[in-house]
């Protein structure tokens, strides 16, 4: 029988882009709150206060995988019955909790009030709360709100919501000046590598969003070119455009090809000559190729399926197929932003099975009948698939590990090769 909730629709977008099958059904992904786990490490003086339920608090500590017990810079203001029954004024309660947080952490530069499913449903106006509290704590801490509710955001979309909320806070770029703004959380080591490459190309000034500290909020204006480091930042990109910036179209900096295309977009925008560009890139590319060769031997010809999760699926599939020789069985993504994925889709092989959305049990059925050599999935699904004899890669590792750029291309491939290598090693 066909369950009424499940639907699979195919769309043919015309031109040569792959056909996308849309699925609606049970989804199996984190909500946007999961992004707090890496965002709070990146912005070193930021605190993330989720206004939500015990589930939110439990999710955060479980998604962190291990409990990071250095005093965390995130917490949950757990709604209780008296808040819902109207016995306690939610706004007064929120002010009290914010006061508690700021008492404990006088060193904060930015406090994020993060909306959740319950706070959305009870229509708690966090924008207004942020405005009110900003007046109270003016000059001491910046207070910004965004929603990471699972009703609206899927996993990495939480970062998009957070960065979008930062855009109005960015100081204006003076008229007549230009700048390059790289948007998307990158590990510090990768950020520094890209910084050196941009400097070699003579591209400057370059700034990164999110910044490491509140004091380093980068300027934004009509002279700003925006380069997305992550493929899930559509709303943030559009917010930058609304302030007059231009969005550079490029593949994402995964693998040699992606990184080259990404840097070239900036170089072209800056008028760097192809000869200068090629000369500057050559050593890094050669090194990356050497590193990648080892992993390619393990990956070439192997079949891979992606379950929809981190939104990195399409760029990673492109990398694994074109640079590592893997065969793509299915590439599923939680949602497809065609504008952001244009360059990536053009690089996917024609006829690849591309799925947008999810209907979990049917998807698992397909994985079982396809029996790919490796399946990329969420943490909750990995061990059950392993127990069925399928090798897996947890997608959350892809957002916690330095994987962007030339010098991480081999590391990225190694993440996928390791389960296969391990499988070949074990004799138990």
């Amino acid at each position, binding site marked *: 029988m066909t369950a*009424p909730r499940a639907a699979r629709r195919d769309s043919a977008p015309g031109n040569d882009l792959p056909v996308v099958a849309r699925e609606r059904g049970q989804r199996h992904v984190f909500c946007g709150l999961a992004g707090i786990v890496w965002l709070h490490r990146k912005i070193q003086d930021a605190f993330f206060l989720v206004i939500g*339920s015990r*589930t939110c608090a439990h*999710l955060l500590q479980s998604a962190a995988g291990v*409990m990071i017990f250095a005093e965390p810079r995130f917490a949950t203001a757990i*709604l209780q019955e008296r808040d819902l029954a109207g016995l306690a004024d939610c706004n007064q309660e929120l002010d009290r*909790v914010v006061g508690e947080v700021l008492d404990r952490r006088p060193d904060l530069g930015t406090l994020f009030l993060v909306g959740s*499913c319950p706070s959305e449903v009870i229509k708690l106006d966090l924008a207004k709360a942020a405005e009110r509290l900003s007046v109270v704590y003016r000059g001491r801490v910046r207070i910004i709100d965004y929603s990471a509710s699972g*009703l609206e955001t899927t996993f990495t979309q939480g970062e998009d919501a957070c960065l979008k909320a930062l855009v109005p806070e960015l100081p204006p770029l003076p008229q007549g000046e230009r700048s390059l703004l790289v948007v998307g959380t990158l590990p510090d080591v990768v950020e520094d590598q890209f910084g050196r490459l941009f400097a070699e190309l003579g591209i400057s000034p370059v700034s990164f969003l999110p910044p490491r500290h509140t004091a380093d909020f980068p300027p934004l204006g009509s002279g700003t070119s925006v380069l997305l480091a992550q493929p899930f930042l559509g709303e943030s990109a559009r917010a930058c455009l609304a302030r007059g910036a231009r969005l550079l179209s490029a593949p994402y900096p995964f693998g040699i090809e992606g990184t080259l295309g990404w840097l070239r977009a900036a170089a072209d925008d800056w008028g760097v000559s192809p000869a200068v560009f090629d000369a500057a890139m050559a050593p890094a590319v050669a090194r990356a190729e050497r590193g990648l060769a080892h992993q390619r031997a393990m990956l070439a010809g192997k079949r891979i399926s992606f379950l929809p999760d981190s939104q990195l699926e399409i760029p990673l599939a492109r990398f694994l197929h074109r640079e590592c020789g893997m065969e793509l069985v299915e590439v599923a993504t939680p949602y497809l932003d065609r504008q952001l994925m244009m360059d990536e889709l053009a690089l996917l092989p024609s006829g690849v099975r591309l799925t947008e959305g999810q209907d979990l049990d049917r998807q698992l059925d397909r994985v079982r009948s396809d029996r790919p050599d490796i399946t990329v999935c969420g943490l909750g699904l990995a061990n*059950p698939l392993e127990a069925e004899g399928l090798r897996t890669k947890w997608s959350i590792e892809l957002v916690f590990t330095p994987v962007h750029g030339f010098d991480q291309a081999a590391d990225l491939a190694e993440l996928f090769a390791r389960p296969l290598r391990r499988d070949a090693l074990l004799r138990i």
Partner: protein
Amino acid sequence: MQLTLWTYEGPPHIGAMRVAASMQGVHLVLHAPQGDTYADLLFTMIERRDRRPPVTYTTFQARELGGDTAQLVKASVTEAYERFSPRVLLVGEACTAELIQDQAGALARGMGLPIPVLPLELPAYVRKEGWGANETFYQLIRGLLKPRVPDAGRRPEPRPAERRPRANLLGPTALGFRCRDDVTEVSRLLASVGVDVHVVAPLGASPEDLLRIPEADFNVCLYPETADQACHWLERMFGQPTVKTVPIGIGATRDFLQEVGRVAEIDVGDAKAANWSRMPWYSRSVDSTYLTGKRVFIFADATHAAAAARICAEELGFTVVGVGTYAREFARDVRACAHRYGVEPLITDDYLEVEARASELQPELMLGTQMERHIAKRLGIPCAVISAPVHVQDFPARYAPQMGFEGANVLFDTWVHPLMMGLEEHLITMFREDFEFHDAAMPSHLGPRPAAGRSAGAALEPVDAQAQAGASATIWAPEAEQELKKIPFFVRGKARRNTERFAEEQGIQTITVETLYDAKAHFGR
């Protein structure tokens, strides 16, 4: 609103999932948005379960809030029923669904499925995980067994003389602390006195197994946090007595056998001798004299906390300096236990309070959950984990029960090993300036990690500084300060405070070496 950095318990629907995931043939439809699916990883990663918990989430989204969500519940129920063919269906709502009031349980009930459909009330803004597990198990037992309740006043048939007594073990669940091995150990214990285990539930049970529960002569309430409601109901409805002693520790195991003997009307005289535990002898051996009076702070679920306190006091010769629990529903048991050992109970689910109490008490050993393990690490105090919330390490590959005589062996090893061994402790006290045996060194068997010890020492400093600020009237002479450093780091904070208190009481302005030793004599430790 309650500011929460870390939480001991999840929301109540996690408790429901623990019960569902424990069983065969039971499926849970959970009305919840997509983010709530994170809960699967608790089972598949922490416990390394080889299959998803039997849960279908409706994963409603913002665009469906207008009115499609009820339809989504029905579709999910239909799909779950057709795909998984459960013999019992549980239907519950997580925190967000509770707010939109779709009455998921009633909707599912009205669909006329040919299997029992049990709606669960899981008030997410009032209750927590433990309560949710307890309630779900109770609703399952009650939902399935209600039609079989005998008429009021009818007592169960007496056990035929030729049949061995039968017991049900109730309460072990997925994500419980060492439940897997406790069940094996308690079954072995019961077998040793001629009692057969009839049904173990929820862990590993099917709905048909639950229907067989009334055939046993009595129930063992192995984990009151998850089974006390069910046991109570079975006692009232089926006249099945409950064995309430939880056999953790030598004394409790003997008491447990005693209670089993009384309830089953059998002689258990021979079995009480702890004949297969080494723990009593190990504890009496001279090497263990260094355990005497070690100051222990205990914080856990109520059952494990109370059991640990008794073992510490009676079986290891420790001094219980604090005991507490996050399980408010069972706070009474822990209060009684605290009273018995003359300490102030700590009933809280705020880990910051636990941390504050720990740094105030300066125990030499912490027994707690994974949260206390982290607190202890920060404070540089040895620690052993005795209770949920669990971590992947709490599912060891080896057999490691907490209950019964073998459990007592396991407890001896795991609680004693983190401590500095006898002679090592003496040497450190004697040769304070020794470059290898300095006070920031870890116990040698825990490996050469002086850095951890040092940072632990540093973590203690703020506590010391506060104590100093509080007693600003007295000052420390440099020689006294120097002497203080020779006291082992794990009791130094306490020595400092005691000395300052003593100086204040005596009206001493400057603390000298003499004052330090006078205070030591005064407090007698």
